[in-house]
């Protein structure tokens, strides 16, 4: 028996194998993370990245394999063991209690007490110190639900640090962040690194890998397919290793041939949950055969706008006209029947029923259509046949239609939703963050699909926080700020900088006047 010396590594995972019923999620995976480095794990959706990290954090236990922390073998049976080994994890979906304050969330499970009493003051002080030390500014007394996503993520990071983590795992931390917030996060990560922390970063964004990591482990179909130093690779090579083929990192499309207006929004006013106006007198239109992109920083009314158009949220005033009909007060069902598809922003809340198998999720919204139901009974055979086709066409992995929605990887959940909405042949598609959490191959595929839908004459309203996505797909770009449109341009007549200024609240005409 060789006795390897792993002392230079913060984390070594050796021969990790994890099987789920019918799925080999990790197949003898080796991972080496040096002390004090930022290490990226990249790979296709369902490659097994989250599964691998869940084992390091003790959420699930490996079937085979060993874990070494700082050179010593460690049994990590549960998250408490992981915390003891100074490992912390920030999840893809945050686990904060919305109604509690920042301090309360941070101390949850490790509440400080003085005698029989809860001693929040001490923790408040500790948190302030942590914040200062790592540049993680956040108000300890703010209530979570009032904070933007980027701030919530900071809370998660502080929470991990508060528990003394030396090794931090971040699972797709930037998927929900604005570019600005991403930059801030990276500053924080570099800071943490300077202070000697080791960081494992899962991401689908290859430019991020290039920007802040030292080395990369690439996974594919449960196996490691490559380990490289970041300085010796490039995004194209990484994409290649991930997907196993050439990937187009840019979108190719012809000029649009827009037809008549299919959607008109007139002076729309919509309130957000707390009763404040989030969409404030907004107007826009979408024509057949064009993609209208809505650029903007998250939280400027995009959610409320798309929910109002699709009927999930009440309209205060204004009108929504679809195919020439005033649909302002129509039910979501009616809008669907008229041919409005919707890829929702929050896939776990609106898009998917986690306890339904994939084939049930594929018919959500169409379940009473004559294709899938005779009025009383579901046509199970047809549904399954339809689902098998979709799974193949959209490359959902694993291609098992009776897997429960919750057992799919994040990116594959997204694929199921996108596949369903596209298969339903809408004439208008409201698309929110269609590629959030998708791997490069899948993004390429979804982008191509959206373009080809456009070319078939479907009108598409695209909301995305990714400026790149907006620029490469849209025929017209509208920029939203505090519930109002700051200006309309086309990708060839503007620059990301100009749109960036609009996103910050400057009107297009003002910008151009000054220039």
């Amino acid at each position, binding site marked *: 028996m060789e006795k390897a010396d792993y002392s230079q590594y913060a984390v070594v995972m050796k021969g990790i194998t994890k099987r789920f019923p019918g799925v080999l999620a990790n197949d003898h995976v080796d991972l080496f993370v040096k002390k004090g480095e930022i290490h990226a794990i990249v790979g296709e959706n369902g490659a097994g990245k989250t599964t691998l990290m869940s084992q390091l954090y003790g959420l699930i236990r490996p079937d085979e394999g060993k874990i070494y922390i700082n050179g010593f073998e460690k049994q990590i049976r549960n998250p408490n063991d992981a*915390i003891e080994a100074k490992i912390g994890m920030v999840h893809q979906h945050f686990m904060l209690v919305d109604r509690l304050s920042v301090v309360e969330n941070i101390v949850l499970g490790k509440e400080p007490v003085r005698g029989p009493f809860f001693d929040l003051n001490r923790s408040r002080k500790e948190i302030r110190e942590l914040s200062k030390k790592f540049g993680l500014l956040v108000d300890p007394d703010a209530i979570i639900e009032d904070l933007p996503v980027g701030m919530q993520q900071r809370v998660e990071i502080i929470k991990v640090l508060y528990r003394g983590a030396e090794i931090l795992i971040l699972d797709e931390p930037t998927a929900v962040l604005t570019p600005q917030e991403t930059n801030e996060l990276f500053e924080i990560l570099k800071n943490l690194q300077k202070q000697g922390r080791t960081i494992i970063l899962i991401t689908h964004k290859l430019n991020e890998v290039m920007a802040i990591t030292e080395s990369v482990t690439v996974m594919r179909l449960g196996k490691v397919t490559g380990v490289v130093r970041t300085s010796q690779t490039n995004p194209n090579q990484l994409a290649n290793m991930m997907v196993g083929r050439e990937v187009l990192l840019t979108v190719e499309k012809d000029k649009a041939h827009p037809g008549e207006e299919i959607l008109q929004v007139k002076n729309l006013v919509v309130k957000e949950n707390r009763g404040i106006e989030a969409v404030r007198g907004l107007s826009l239109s979408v024509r057949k055969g064009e993609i209208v992109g809505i650029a903007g920083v998250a939280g400027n009314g995009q959610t409320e706008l798309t929910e109002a158009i699709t009927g999930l949220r009440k309209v205060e005033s204004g009108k929504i006209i679809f195919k020439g009909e005033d649909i302002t007060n129509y039910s*979501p069902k009616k*809008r669907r029947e008229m041919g409005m598809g919707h890829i929702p922003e929050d896939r776990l809340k609106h898009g998917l*029923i986690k306890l339904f198998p994939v084939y049930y999720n594929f018919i*959500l919204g169409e379940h009473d259509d004559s294709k899938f139901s005779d009025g009383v009974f579901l046509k199970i055979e047809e549904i399954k046949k339809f689902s098998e086709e979709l799974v193949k066409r959209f490359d959902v992995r694993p291609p098992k239609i009776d897997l*429960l929605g919750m057992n799919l990887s994040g990116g594959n959940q997204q694929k199921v939703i996108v596949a369903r909405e596209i298969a339903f042949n809408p004439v208008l598609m409201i698309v929110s963050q269609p590629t959030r959490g998708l791997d490069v191959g899948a993004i390429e595929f979804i982008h191509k699909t959206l373009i080809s839908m456009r070319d078939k004459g479907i009108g598409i309203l695209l909301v995305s926080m990714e400026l790149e996505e907006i620029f490469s797909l849209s025929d017209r770009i509208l920029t939203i700020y505090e519930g109002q449109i700051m200006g309309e341009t086309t990708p060839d007549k503007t620059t990301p900088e100009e749109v960036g200024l609009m996103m910050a609240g400057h009107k297009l005409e003002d910008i151009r006047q000054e220039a």
Partner: protein
Amino acid sequence: MNVKKYLLNEKVIISLLSVLISLVIAAIVMIVIGKNPLVAYAALFYGAFGTKEAIIDNLMKASPLILTGLAVGFGFRAGLFNIGANGQVIIGALLSAYVGTLVGSYPFFLSIPLVMIAGMLGGAAWAAIAGWLKAYRGAHEVITTIMLNYVATFIANYVVNGPFQAPGGVPKSPSIAYSAQFPNIMSVGATSLSTIIFVSLAAIVVIYVIIQRTTIGYEVKAVGFNPYAAEYGGISIGKNVVLAMAISGALAGLAGTTQVVGVYGRYFGALGGSMGFDGITIALIGQNDPIGIALAAFLISSIRTGSNQMQIAGVPKDLVVIIQGIIIFLVAANRIIKTIRIRRRKEAEA
């Protein structure tokens, strides 16, 4: 199908283990109070299955419990806690008894469907009130169904002591027409096995099919699992809450009806007993699965039927209440344990 089988097995194991453990605990209690558990269980078993009468009695007890178990279980599927099955049993029974007195001149193939429909409609309407209040007024169904239980009891007391009282001053309704009564399959001494058992068996199949195979079942489950996604998918939450309550109530109403048309031939005050509340127990043990519910109903009816014999053998009959209590505790505790585990995990993740 693998995953589903896996889950199903886990559920079955939980229920079976709970039953076993509760029997063991009860045995320990018996030893402590100086009784021989083997003797007691032998008596219990004999009392439930030992004679023809016992088996008939057992089946007749199980029959309405299957229906109320299905009623509560169906509500659970939509995320609704129907505590009002008792009230729905009463209203169903009352209405079917009333219609039963009107159909004297009809042939049985008309009067039997009529009383059954009346009973189901009665229960459905009663439950739908709570459904409507939940869907469109935001009133929690636990509160409203409990209140409706009281209302149902008082209505029933009033009518069988007044407008719908049989001559003789006893609080019971006149007996229903002969053509509306379900025939017996066989009688042994004073106990008879009524054809109402087939109603319960049919209900198991119907509910199973509704849940697994129909559009309604799809929508109800979607609303129960994730109302946001359901709404997104064009499924009306309000409509389905009312509908699920109505179906749940119809089953409870049917349970009441079977007692009128198959056992007593009339309505009288204590007819429903606590079968509505028993439905909660049974749905829990059966884990909302129609077949599980049928088995759970049979389990409960068996230990109840057998308990008399156990009493004769010198072990207090109340012990079966303890057994039942422990089973529920364990099945529910399994959820508690799971929740605690998840919470711990989340906290640790923090």
